[in-house]
Structures are given as structure tokens and as C-alpha cells.
């Protein structure tokens, strides 16, 4: 335990030192400017305190972000308003629901396309270039169109955001699953042939189980992409709710502390979601004798 803890804490401590140092450097011009206008002399000690306590700093100090996060999470829970519209839990939940739905849709689409590519020669020759092309288009350009088009046919709310999530997350699943479904060797496929196994028997008993290590790796990438998609999807909707909305609102009003707290919340959410998949991966592959 100690052997792991020491290096991790060292890295974290270094990051904090750099962060506080950068906060001084970036916020100092504004502090000096203010002091000059008020006709005051600013000593180094006072400058440091000033740069770490501004309302709208260029770079907020860690403790400012931590205080903001606490104010919008734990403190609100203690006050019994844990799910109010000002709470980060509320916004995280909004983003999470779009992420989760988009991830499920993206995984389903990705697996379906991969099966098509592996079993159908026409799809094998034609689909992959389109799949790759789809990912070269900037999602920021597509997202507003998806929102507008779906809104025009009466679909709004969760689904348009989930679609954008899906758009980003199906790609790693297609690529990984095509490789995974093709991972059984010639010998294993010959063996199925000697038993005169049908295509579906070969799929369920050999190809699908063989693809599991590839699937889980893809799911981790896909989950992170889903979260990005959900956040991007929240931007053009007018910043009503969600972590993306908090980021946009924060940037409208120069609320850097709010932006950073939303960012850290998003990172925490991503880490938790990818961690859950990693856990399922470990348990599953261990049980399958493939870890």
C-alpha cells in the first residue's frame, strides 16, 4: 500500500505546487493593476494572497475550485437540496443520463456494424471507410444540426444529446469488435467446421466469447467519448442543464471557478464510469480464464 501511495502522492503534490505557482503568475497582472489604480504598494506576500483569492481569476487556485465544488455538492446535500438546479450533482446526473443512453446506443450500433462487417462481404468492403469518415467530421459542427433536425421532428431533451454521444462512442466499438470477432484462429474455425456447426453456433460459442477482451477495451474508450459527446451536445441546446451547460454559462459570465469545478466534476464522472467498466472487465475476463 505504502509503495503505491508514495509515488501517487508525490505526483499529486507536484501538480498542486505547479498549479498554485501558475495561479500566481497568471493572476498577478490583474492584481498589480488593481493595486496601481488604488495607489497602493503590493508586497510579495500580499500579491500571493491576492492572486489566490480573486473572484474571477484567469486561473483559480485549487482551494477556490474545491470550495466551489463543496458549495455546489456536499453543502447542498447537507442543506437537503442535493438535487436542486444549482447543484453539481443535478448537472452531473443530466450529463450522465445522456452519456449512459448514448453509450448503450453506441455500443449496440458498434456491435451490430461489426457483426455486419465480419459476416457480410459487401459491408466488409464498404462500411469501414464511412465509419472512419464519420469520425473526421468535427463533432462541434454536427452537434447543432442533430439538435435542430431532431427538434424539427419533435424530438428534444435527452435523445438528441444521446445521439451525439452515440455518434462518438460507436466508433471504437466497431473497430475493436471487428478485430475481436476475427480473433479466433484458422484452427478454431476449422474445428467448428469439422463439427458442421452453423454460423450462429460459431458466433455465439466461439467468435463472441473470443472478442470479449477487445470489447472491454473498446467500451472504455467509448465511454469516455460518450461523455465528451454528451457535454458537446449540451452546448447548442441553450445551456439549460448539465455539465456542458455549466461550462458554457461559466464562460459567458467569466466564472472561471465555475468552469473549473464543472471540468473537475466531468473528469471525476469519466474516471468513475471508465473505472466501473474496468472492474466488470476484470471480473468477467478472470471468470472466462482470459485475464
Amino acid at each position: 500500500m505504502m509503495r503505491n501511495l508514495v509515488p501517487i502522492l508525490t505526483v499529486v503534490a507536484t501538480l498542486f505546487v505547479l498549479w498554485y505557482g501558475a495561479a500566481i503568475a497568471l493572476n498577478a497582472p490583474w492584481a498589480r493593476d488593481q493595486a496601481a489604480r488604488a495607489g497602493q504598494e503590493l508586497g510579495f506576500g500580499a500579491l500571493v494572497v491576492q492572486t489566490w483569492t480573486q473572484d474571477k481569476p484567469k486561473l483559480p487556485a485549487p482551494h477556490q475550485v474545491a470550495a466551489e465544488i463543496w458549495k455546489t455538492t456536499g453543502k447542498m446535500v447537507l442543506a437537503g437540496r442535493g438535487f436542486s438546479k444549482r447543484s453539481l450533482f443535478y448537472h452531473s446526473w443530466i450529463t450522465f443520463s445522456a452519456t449512459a443512453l448514448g453509450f448503450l446506443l453506441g455500443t449496440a450500433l458498434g456491435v451490430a456494424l461489426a457483426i455486419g462487417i465480419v459476416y457480410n462481404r459487401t459491408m466488409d468492403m464498404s462500411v469501414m471507410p464511412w465509419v472512419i469518415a464519420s469520425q473526421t467530421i468535427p463533432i462541434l459542427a454536427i452537434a447543432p444540426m442533430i439538435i435542430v433536425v431532431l427538434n424539427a421532428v419533435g424530438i428534444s431533451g435527452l435523445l438528441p444529446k444521446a445521439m451525439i454521444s452515440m455518434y462518438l462512442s460507436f466508433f471504437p466499438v466497431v473497430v475493436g469488435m471487428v478485430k475481436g470477432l476475427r480473433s479466433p484462429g484458422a484452427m478454431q474455425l476449422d474445428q467448428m467446421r469439422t463439427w458442421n456447426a452453423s454460423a450462429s453456433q460459431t458466433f455465439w460459442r466461439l467468435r463472441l466469447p473470443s472478442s470479449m477482451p477487445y470489447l472491454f477495451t473498446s467500451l472504455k474508450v467509448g465511454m469516455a467519448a460518450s461523455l465528451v459527446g454528451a457535454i458537446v451536445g449540451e452546448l447548442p441546446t441553450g445551456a439549460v442543464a448539465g455539465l456542458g451547460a455549466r461550462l458554457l454559462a461559466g464562460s459567458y459570465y467569466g466564472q472561471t471557478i465555475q468552469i473549473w469545478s464543472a471540468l473537475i466534476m466531468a473528469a471525476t464522472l469519466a474516471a468513475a464510469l471508465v473505472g466501473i467498466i474496468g472492474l466488470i472487465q476484470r471480473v468477467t475476463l478472470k471468470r472466462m480464464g482470459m485475464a
Partner: protein
Amino acid sequence: MTKDTVISATDLSLTFQTNDGPVHALKDVSLNVEQGDFVSFIGPSGCGKTTFLRVMADLEHPTAGQITVNGVSPEDARKARAYGYVFQAAGLYPWRTIGGNIRLPLEIMGYAKSDQDARVKAVLELVELSGFEKKFPWQLSGGMQQRASIARALAFDADLLLMDEPFGALDEIVRDHLNEQLLDLWKRTQKTICFVTHSIPEAVYLSTKIVVMSPRPGRIADIIDSPLPRDRPLDIRDTPEFLEIAHRVREGLRAGHGDDA
């Protein structure tokens, strides 16, 4: 060809088209295998012994000549699940137990659940792996894994067993033991076995018929009907009869290899 002929090949040829021109894997091969025979195919790499076995199993298609398995085409024989095939590697699924692996072909062929259980138990006993049903492949040694793969090929009702260098990757001591077990199994089950090998002692010890093959093009150099009795203790390998057959196999291999040995 009699009614007991399991495999009958006449002027069988198979040519692979490669970038370096055609490769004659098999050229005018004719052979009959009778019910209950233990036939070994021996020869250097590229002599077509594995290709011949794969043609019997309908995994390759001959470009000329005729072959029947159980009196029908290899494709029909395969569809009728007429043979069990043992590959060089055990090829057990790591996510299935030993029992689950043996059950796999039975599930695919649609055997009833109770029948599956009985068969798994019976073949595990046959290869002396009783008690390992619930173990996973990684918990077994290489030799035990290969025995499990033989059990898997024996689990369904196929009278023909095709074995492609099943013991090639195992060490000498394990191999001796498995050879003994295989002979015992062959006697008890009355199966017809076609066995591809690199090893002269293995071929002579196991077989009732030894097919010596030579490369470029792959063809049969010699067919030796073994005079050894069906009961063969391991020390039969020190008898003059055994050494005489081994000598003839070696001569056959050398003749076929004359130009580039």
C-alpha cells in the same frame, strides 16, 4: 474396395495456386483404409500428409481424383459428423471447463442434456481424466489438455478419428505414455484412426498400416502393412521385427528425399 472400406482415394491430386506458381501438395495419391485400421502418415514437411488428412475432413478440396469417406463424399461425411478431428494444438476454450469443452460438439450436434452428461463422463474415463471435469484448461498440463481434446473428438458417435500430429508439441516421456493410452483406446473403441506424425518410432509403434510420403510433389512412397500384433507393450520397440519395420520406413523416407536430403 470392400464394404468395410472407410476411406478410398483414387489418383487424388491437390494443387495450391500461390504467388510463386502452383504447389503440388498431393499428386496421384491412391489409398484404401479399412474399418478398424490404425494408419499412420509419415514424411518430411511439405509431403502432403496433413493436406491428405484435411481432404478427408473436407477442410481442403482436391483438384483431381476421387475420394470417399464412409462411401460418400468428404462433404457429406462431414455433414453427417462422421469423424472426429484432433488438431496439433489442443485448442480448448479457456472460458469453458474441461467438461464444458467436451460438451461443446455435443451441444452443437444437439445431443440431449442427460446424454451429454453421460458421454462427457464416459470419455473422461476413457482418457483417464475423471475428476477433472470442473477444472479449467489452464489448470491442466499440456499432455492432459491434449487428452481432453482427444476426449472431445471421441464424445460423439464418429467411428473415424483423424489426428494431425496430436503429440507433436509434447515431450518424449509424455508422448510415450499417450501413445500407450491411444493404442489402448483404439483397441477398446474399435475406431478407425488416421494419424499424421513426424516420428518413426511413433508411427511403427501405433500403426497397422504405415503410409510413407515424400514431398514435391506430395505422393505416397511406400505403404507398409505392419506384421506386429495388435497387443503392443512399449518394449516391443526393442524387438527385431519392430526395428526391421522402422528400417523400412527410414529407407522409404530416404528414397523419397534422395535429391535434397
